[in-house]
């Protein structure tokens, strides 16, 4: 019985840690979903741009010896600029209805950013300053890592701010209008390109924060983190339902918890394999995701 109890605590503990860490996936998923919602397109280079933001902030932190708090802000701003650049290079000038070309261009963008990072760092991981890593709270048999809790709170605040902007301001209204009816929105005098680039920049802000959060929680930044983050972000987006922000949040936390449980039982080598398998289970049983709308009317 004691063994069972011990096991139970261990499993729930790892689920809890995973859910906290899952907030980074949720943010990346929201970013993918925002861009999809606005343009109906996937920006595969998104997570790479987010990580590049984290790298830039790390560079500024080291070069100027900036205070720790600045890291998240700088990362967000850099990723927003990169997001806008990705929009310009991979989406802006490609015909609207050619989804495949835009997708392909953003895959090119993913490799480009990835390679630039590999070259700039010679492919080796860099230490990333983590915050509150000494802090440790004990709640009954459980322990809560300070850095994870901090990351979770940053994610919570960013999501809150995003939702406020999206549902309580004019900018958010315009974005949602374009997402729902781009022709009608254009007739009402909204500029598609302006709202699209704003969406990319806003998604970039979130991505930059998520990139820095990931690095802060893991303690390092490495180019090999880019692809898994991209894939998990996409998986979260699909599981949550393309275009659904609440879906992305729930799916992000869920994937975070799920992968930790798998890691507990099967080890880190097999972890990502099962996360991907989870996607297929969803594709079979709920192809529209948790909150996806079925598309009607052409």
């Amino acid at each position, binding site marked *: 019985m004691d063994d069972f109890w011990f096991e139970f605590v261990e499993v729930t503990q790892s689920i809890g840690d995973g859910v906290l860490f899952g907030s980074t996936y949720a943010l990346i998923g929201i970013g993918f979903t925002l861009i*999809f919602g606005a343009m*109906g*397109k*996937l920006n*595969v280079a998104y997570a790479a741009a987010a990580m590049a933001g984290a790298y830039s902030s790390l560079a500024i932190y080291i070069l100027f010896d900036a205070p720790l708090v600045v890291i998240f802000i700088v990362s967000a701003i850099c990723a927003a600029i990169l997001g806008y650049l990705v929009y310009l*290079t*991979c989406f802006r*000038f*490609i*015909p609207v209805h*050619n*989804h*495949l*070309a*835009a*997708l*392909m*261009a953003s*895959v*090119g*963008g*993913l*490799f*480009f*950013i*990835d*390679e*630039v990072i*590999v*070259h700039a760092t010679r492919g080796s991981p860099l230490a990333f300053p983590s915050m509150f890593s000494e802090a440790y709270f004990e709640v009954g048999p459980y322990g809560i890592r300070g850095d994870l809790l901090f990351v979770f709170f940053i994610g919570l605040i960013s999501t809150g701010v995003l939702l406020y902007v999206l549902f309580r301001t004019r900018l958010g209204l315009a974005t949602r209008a374009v997402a729902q009816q781009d022709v009608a929105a254009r007739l009402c005098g909204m500029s598609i390109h302006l709202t699209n680039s704003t969406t990319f920049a806003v998604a970039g802000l979130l991505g930059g924060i998520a990139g820095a959060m990931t690095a802060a929680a893991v303690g390092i930044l490495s180019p090999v983190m880019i*692809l898994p983050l991209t*894939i998990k972000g*996409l*998986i979260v*987006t*699909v599981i949550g339902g*393309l275009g659904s922000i609440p879906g992305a949040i729930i799916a992000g936390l869920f994937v975070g918890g799920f992968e930790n449980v798998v890691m507990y039982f099967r080890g880190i*080598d*097999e972890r*990502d*394999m099962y996360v*991907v*398998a989870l*996607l*297929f289970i969803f*594709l*079979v049983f709920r*192809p529209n995701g948790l909150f996806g709308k079925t598309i009607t009317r*052409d």
Partner: protein
Amino acid sequence: MDYFLNLVNTIGIHTLLGLSAYILLLTGQLSLAQAGFFAVGAYTAAVLTVILGWGILPAIGLAMLITGLLAFLVGFPALRVRGLMLVVATLAFGEFVRMFFYNFRWRVTQEGVEVGPDGTMGFSEIRYFAEHGWTSWEVTSLIWVFVILVMAIIWWADQTRSGAVLRAVGEDELAAGTVGIDVTVVKMAAMTAGGVIAGLAGSLYAHQITMLDHHAFTVLLATFAIAYPILGGVSNVFGTLVAVIFIQGLLVEGLRFLGDWRMLLFGALIIVVMNVKPRGLFDSQTLRWIKSVLRLHLSRRIS
């Protein structure tokens, strides 16, 4: 000479890989799973010749069969979603396969030596060609016989009604349904055919390169696979071949002095081409231009 032949082999294998994505692209599907099917084909064929001691042709045949079956099975859940979701699903599948082989161990002792796939360490000593005394020329010929065969079959299919049906689905799924085409069946057929060809490419690759490593089957390879037909355009199979020669011959080999910067160039190249020619380098516009130039050239010669 061997260096040259290796390049020719690589071009042949990558052409097959590109053609496997080409078929899917005809039906309007962008699949990032081709690297996964390629990997399955490679490991299957290698296990058959190394561990079970099969001949090369039966091994390739079974590998093609298995990857075709796998593509068919993957197609079911993947095709329930459309367009961009399919990209996510196939991307995830490709990574799943890579991670599977990262964890895949099957070691057996043969004549005192341990052989077989060894997880992270990869799968080395795939020595079928060496053990059976194949010369480099014979290996290259084998690969290119398959390349020419597959190109011929696809080119031929494109002249038939089946080819037109594939393209019709790619042009407009809804309209295809309303002229009586069973869109799901067509897409499944394309998916399966793509899997078979990718499996063929993989099984040739395994024996030509003699050692498999999960690093070879990343998203980069999947991107190569779709980049060939996209850059080459889907007007005909030769576009894919030209794109492979351009990327593998010129960009990867020709610019070797640039070192790792070539991959950076690859990313930039895709972005530039998609902006300038969103329908591929060899779209119908370019083809017409080439034809008119050729015609002018010929008529001048005659007169």
